[in-house]
């Protein structure tokens, strides 16, 4: 049994932030959880699907649908959870705006996981502004224990206010682990029924919709005032430090831990106080004003946007406090950087400047003078050994080069985003949000009228296809655009850890489910379609060339080959790959070392001493594609049983 389902209140375990959120949701007695995979949020739905048979978990087709699925449960009287990474909140935002207005019935919580520093994202988006924009309450856990407690309490809050409640986490909390003490597991009554016969404005028995907008919007704002009242004495807002500190740090989220640690490290406990806000929106006035009245200098320690900084400044402007007696430091004063994630060093730098501290001697003298480090080669991320994407991009790139009309490829979100890097032969020339590669290609494909004759290719993964590439594809066919969509179908949502999607014959819990055939869908839309194995370079390139040179229209090439890390392929090799030392001519070959310098699979090694390629037996996944790349047939592959 997973420790997450242990009903032993008071026990302490080491848990990932995301697991603590799961536990909090279980302690709130949720019945339904839906989401779309995205780092750093994926483990929440994944774990719930694994450990609990009492609740319905769903990997929805995208975040907007996930939010709708979770809302339906709330409308029917069941507590529900929707989970997504920050860009997913953008996808779900349209429904969220209306849901905030219509209100919810049973407790409904949205967990949004931000990724400050873009550690595993192609943006540094900020969810907190959505709380303000959508006019809904938001909580920000500052440690692992709070991740559990706040998630659990958020459901109660949601039921008190009949509003969805946002819980905002970040990578450094979701993916970090810490001690969590368990609370009680309830035995909820899980009877679903949608009441709709009551009065239009009755939150428990009436129909649930955003109109009449005037009345609903007014009531939404009254609920927010109520939330601010409830937050006034919330235990999630804490203060530690001297009664009248020389400097007051106001912080939220995991930034609290950095602040505490640095204050201790620099021995500033007698000079600096830390006010940690957990109930970030609407900002409760009293706990903040009370502290501001006892200091003259304030430093805001937060990531991404100056959210708390602005809210506090607005609060002060409307308060009895004398503004001229306070000096604010933070993102506006550039004491805290405006981009990138928080680090202990950033807190140290700000405090050192503001309190005029001496620099740390170790940082000054280490590595010791005279100890020159050899140049450390950077470790660029790349496709794994045996990854079908390397072969796919090798073919796309080769064909576009051969075609020689400056054709280009529009990228999309997934492991294959790395097609923009050297390991993907710099194939991708645009990269934005989920499904945007196809939308951009649909637009590029209409520019012939203005003299553009460059072939247009878009790529998308199998999960991305269902998430958001279908509407642009419909758009392209209907509007007679012209491009080739290459669906890089590796049989799962690979980048986030193989969550299933509608193209697979299994559902979130691994039970049988009707798969939706990507090729048939595209054909039904009116696109010309083909399927190839990307490991068959010759066939793939021939088909791509035919599509690119064709006479217009929307063409879809599905390159189907499972991810090398997929459960069915992992630790298996299709081929034993070797290099025949007598055939490999090295630099003298004239191939420009195509295997290592161009194809550059990490499963290969360059033996500089002997001027030859070799195979890295530890890393080679045995896909055998490099054997097709070698013009000398020096790389040889033998099929393994």
């Amino acid at each position, binding site marked *: 049994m997973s420790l997450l389902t242990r009903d032993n209140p008071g026990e302490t375990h080491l848990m990932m932030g995301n697991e603590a959120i799961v536990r909090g949701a279980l302690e709130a007695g949720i019945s339904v959880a839906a989401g779309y995979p995205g780092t*750093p949020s994926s483990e929440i739905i994944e774990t719930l699907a694994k450990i609990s048979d009492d609740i319905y978990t769903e990997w929805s087709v995208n975040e907007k649908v996930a939010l709708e699925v979770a809302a339906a449960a709330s409308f029917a009287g069941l507590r529900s959870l929707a989970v997504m990474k920050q860009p997913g909140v953008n996808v779900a935002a349209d429904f969220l705006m209306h849901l905030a207005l219509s209100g919810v019935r049973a407790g409904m919580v949205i967990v949004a996981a931000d990724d400050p520093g873009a*550690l595993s994202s192609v943006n540094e988006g900020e969810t907190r502004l959505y709380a303000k924009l959508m006019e809904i309450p938001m909580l920000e856990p500052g440690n692992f224990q709070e991740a559990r407690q706040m998630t659990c309490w958020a459901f109660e809050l949601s039921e008190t206010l009949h509003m969805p409640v946002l819980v905002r986490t970040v990578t450094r909390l979701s993916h*970090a682990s810490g001690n969590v003490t368990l609370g009680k597991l309830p035995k909820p009554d899980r009877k679903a029924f949608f009441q709709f016969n009551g009065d239009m404005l009755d939150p428990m028995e009436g129909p649930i919709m955003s109109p009449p907008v005037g009345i609903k919007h007014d009531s939404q704002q009254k609920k927010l005032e109520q939330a601010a009242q409830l937050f006034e004495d919330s235990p999630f807002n804490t203060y530690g430090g001297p009664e009248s500190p020389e400097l007051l740090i106001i912080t939220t989220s995991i930034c609290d831990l950095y602040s505490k640690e640095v204050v201790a490290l620099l021995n500033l406990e007698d000079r600096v106080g830390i006010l940690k806000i957990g109930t970030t929106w609407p900002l409760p006035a009293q706990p903040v004003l009370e502290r501001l009245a006892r200091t003259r200098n304030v430093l805001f320690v937060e990531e991404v946007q100056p959210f708390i900084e602005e809210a506090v400044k607005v609060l002060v402007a409307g308060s009895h406090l004398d503004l001229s007696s306070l000096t604010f430091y933070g993102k506006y004063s550039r004491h805290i950087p405006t981009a990138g994630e928080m680090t202990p060093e950033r807190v140290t730098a700000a405090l050192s400047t503001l309190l005029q501290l001496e620099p740390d001697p170790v940082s000054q003298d280490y590595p010791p003078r005279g100890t020159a*480090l050899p140049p450390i*080669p950077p470790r660029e991320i790349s496709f794994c050994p045996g990854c079908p994407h390397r072969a796919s991009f090798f073919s796309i790139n080769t064909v576009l080069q051969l075609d020689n009309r400056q054709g280009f490829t529009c990228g999309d979100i997934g492991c294959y985003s790395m097609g923009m890097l050297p390991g993907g032969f710099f194939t991708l020339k645009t990269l934005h949000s989920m499904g945007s590669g196809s939308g951009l290609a649909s637009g590029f494909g209409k520019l012939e009228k203005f003299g553009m004759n460059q072939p247009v290719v878009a790529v998308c993964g199998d999960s991305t296809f269902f998430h958001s590439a279908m509407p642009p594809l419909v758009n392209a066919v209907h509007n007679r655009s012209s491009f080739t969509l290459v669906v890089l179908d590796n049989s799962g949502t690979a980048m986030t850890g193989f969550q299933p999607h509608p193209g697979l014959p299994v559902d979130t819990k691994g039970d049988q489910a009707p798969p939706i055939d990507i090729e048939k869908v595209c054909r039904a839309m009116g696109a010309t379609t083909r399927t190839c194995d990307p490991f068959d370079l010759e066939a793939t390139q021939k088909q791509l060339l035919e599509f690119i040179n064709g006479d217009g229209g929307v063409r879809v090439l599905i390159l189907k080959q499972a991810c090398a890390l997929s459960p069915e392929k992992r630790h298996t090799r299709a081929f034993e790959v070797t290099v025949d030392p007598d055939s490999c001519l090295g630099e003298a070959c004239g191939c420009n070392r195509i295997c290592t310098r161009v194809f550059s699979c990490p499963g290969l090694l*360059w033996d500089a001493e002997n001027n030859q390629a070799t195979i890295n037996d530890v890393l080679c996944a045995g896909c055998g594609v490099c054997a097709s790349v070698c013009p000398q047939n020096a790389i040889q592959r033998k099929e393994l049983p």
Partner: protein
Amino acid sequence: MIALNHDPYNLIITGVGGQGNVISSRMIGNMLAAKGFQVTIGETFGASQRGGAVMSHVRISSKATLSPQIPVHQAHMVVSLEPIETLRVLESYGNPDVGVICNTRPTHPIGVISGRLSYPSTKEIKETITRLSARSWFFDATAMATEIGNPIFANIIMAGALAATKELPLDRNVFEETLKSKFPPNKVGLNLTAYDQGVGIINTDNASH
């Protein structure tokens, strides 16, 4: 509770995506949490895992919940599954008192495979690490792991080696219990063998200093 050599104690486990860094840091973290310590493990995974450098910060305290990032130059011990990753970590987190356990088997970055960049020699790496640390151990954990049956066991060998240095209160019984709670029964035996080999290489003084 047993006193820590340093409180907080800052351990970094580093390597390349796919080497089992995360499992190793969780095993060690769980072993210490089971002894009643406050443990924070900071790590990132996702895109950074695809052949990129990975680093787990394991922080142990008897007093407070710590942040998921060790402040620069504050590591007490670096356990490294890959030689140049050791250097990368020392450059930012090292200090004159740091200890190092280093797997000597290189994993070449793409830039090295393609010939754009060069990989420092083992001799140069060892000499630099020795100069940059107070104590260090080197051995080919990948070769040992391959002999056990799978190069992935290098991460558990390193955990065993860390236990044998007595830097942290890690004991074999807790390791075995933790294994049993995390792995299916058929995986427990080989992991124990790997752990014992890690302990052995330090105790028999076969790890070149």
